[in-house]
């Protein structure tokens, strides 16, 4: 079922559908992940024998198109950070593939990987612990430039001033230390460092989670401006579903190491298909008492199982209000139900079927 047929059969929503649907034919894939796994061994005893594994990422597949923001949401421990790190080769994949601009990253090592590094960067949650407290802002931002032999001292100096301007800081700030800045400003320093080498792809791992509410919008607006100016592609990891709706083009929902749904923002928030996405959406409070008073709430029972012992079948089956027998035994297939809307659930039908 392709998007054109969908548009024909549901005439009244045709306009919406064409706007929502990512025209996959036209768009260039920058990052592609396929069957990716990362298992962390659990060691025990004096002989450090492996007794099990944390299945942090357990077989995920998706593409990220050039210039888009793919949101990656999920509760803590669902494997979001590990996904980002494995793509950037900060952690080694256990299985599966991750490509960047057509290059297989899991097989790229040493000098070759080093040469690719400037093109793929990461912004971390805690700007405090990711910035060296004993380095000035100038040397923090210059570090990647030096490491990759970009320009001489003079041109680096200029570049630092330019970067500080781009992230809304002033050249006056160059000789200060991280502790002299507020959380929002430190995050700006981290962003300046991440874009110093003109990357194509940036993994933003909870970049606003540690910031005050009134500062979050400042940083998100900055990330959006930089994306427009520099043509960046983002993987935006966050547990804040409302902010992801704001910033992302498409969104992937993770649960216990798996992606259970991936769709355009409008489809994911207005027409979620996976029972977990539906529950997650209904659990997020909306800052509007009128809306809250009339919302249908779906409360999930129980806790998230341990990733070292995930349930067989569908990983969500222990909390799913719709689970049937086969959900407890068969792993649901990850499939496109129409127009690039992917779901892994036995009970979801193809669109317009």
């Amino acid at each position, binding site marked *: 079922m392709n998007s054109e047929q969908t548009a024909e059969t549901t005439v009244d929503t045709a306009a919406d559908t064409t706007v929502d649907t990512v025209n996959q034919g036209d768009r260039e894939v920058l990052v592609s992940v396929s069957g990716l796994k990362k298992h962390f061994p659990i060691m025990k005893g004096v002989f450090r024998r492996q007794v099990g594994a944390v299945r942090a990422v357990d077989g995920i597949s998706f593409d990220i198109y050039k210039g888009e923001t793919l949101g990656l949401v999920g509760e*803590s421990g669902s494997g979001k950070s590990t996904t980002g790190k494995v793509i950037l080769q900060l952690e080694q994949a256990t299985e599966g593939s991750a490509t960047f601009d057509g290059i297989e990253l899991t097989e790229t090592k040493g000098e070759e990987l080093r040469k690719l590094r400037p093109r793929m960067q990461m912004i971390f949650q805690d700007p405090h612990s990711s910035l060296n407290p004993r380095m000035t802002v100038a040397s923090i931002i210059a570090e990647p430039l030096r490491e990759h032999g970009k320009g001489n001292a003079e041109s680096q100096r200029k570049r630092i001033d330019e970067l500080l301007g781009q992230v809304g800081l002033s050249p006056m700030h160059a000789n200060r230390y991280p502790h002299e800045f507020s959380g929002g400003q430190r995050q700006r320093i981290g962003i300046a460092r991440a874009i110093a080498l003109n990357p194509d792809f940036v993994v933003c791992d909870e970049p606003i989670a540690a910031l*005050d509410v*009134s500062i979050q919008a400042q940083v998100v607006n900055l990330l959006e401006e930089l994306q427009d100016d520099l043509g960046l592609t983002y993987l935006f990891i966050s547990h804040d579903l*409302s902010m992801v709706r*704001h910033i992302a083009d498409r969104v992937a929902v993770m649960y216990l190491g798996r992606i259970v749904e991936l769709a355009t923002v409008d489809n994911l928030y207005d027409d979620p298909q996976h029972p977990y996405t539906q529950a*997650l*959406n209904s659990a997020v409070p909306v*800052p509007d*008492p009128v809306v809250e008073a009339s919302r249908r709430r779906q409360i*999930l029972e129980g806790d998230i199982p341990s990733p070292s012992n995930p349930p067989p079948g569908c990983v969500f089956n222990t909390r799913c209000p719709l689970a049937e027998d086969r959900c407890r035994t068969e792993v649901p297939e990850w499939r496109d139900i129409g127009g690039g809307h992917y779901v892994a659930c036995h009970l979801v039908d193809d669109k317009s079927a």
Partner: protein
Amino acid sequence: MLEVSNLATEFHTPDGVVHAVNGIDFELRQGEFLGVVGESGSGKSVTMMSLLRLIPMPPGKIVSGSAMFDGDDLLEMETSDLRKVRGGKIGFIFQDPMTSLNPVLTVGKQIGESLKLHTDATTRDAKRRSLELLELVGIPDAEQRLKSYPHELSGGMRQRVMIAIALACSPKVIIADEPTTALDVTIQAQIIEIVRDLRTKLGTAVIWITHDLGVVAGLADRVIVMYGGRIVEEARVADLYATPQHPYTRGLLRSIPRLDQKGSDLQTIEGQPPSLRKAPVGCSFAPRCEFAFDRCLTDTPQLTTVGFEHRSACWWDLDNERPRDEL
């Protein structure tokens, strides 16, 4: 039922004085759900800890104010009497249950101790009541859980235990300080549902502190907004969100995205939250406020009635786009 007047708390640290809470007035009515919102450092926790005299003194110092509860001033009361109020008529729940639960006592022991301290329950009564309480907060296998230690429970289950302890002595008020901030959103939803349910069953008044404007929207009757150690606005929940009267509240509401609406531009409040190291002069929001004018820098605006049960501390009249004459 609880009436707080002119409460001010400072911390005298080696680096100078922190003006954490700068003259706060509010009341809590019988059975009411009062939301307290504000960003980190705005003085939410210090306000509530001051009421129960739970701030470390020194370096903390309550420099002024009264807190009338059931005819007595909590700030003047004998420590021994106050101890009975804490965990008795006023129960509390904190963000991180691990810091308030005793790691070496079972859940059953902890609820039981509280019961025996505040009521004349026998060991057998306490056991039965503990079981009831765990069932009330939706803990499965309650009998088994009474024998569990805190570390054996998940974050959500620990927070339920905290709620059970807070409810143990049938308090008149529960003060909950960011009780769901550390929890995942589906677990937060479970806790909120329990609280919603318990309120209709028990009619306990609740003060719920949070930095999340979404959480209180669906729970509170009235909301207080804090900024820089002061209350800047107070209103019934519907009015606060529909017609905020303080520039900070309005700015904050426009800077947060909504799950139920398509992405639109986020407006920002420029600048940073205030440092509390200087004694506040004028309006503490003035350096970030798009409406600030000369008076804002010199005179401190007091909470003034701007509508029915609606008070705001601002020299600028947002609706009429002119300075307020009289405060």
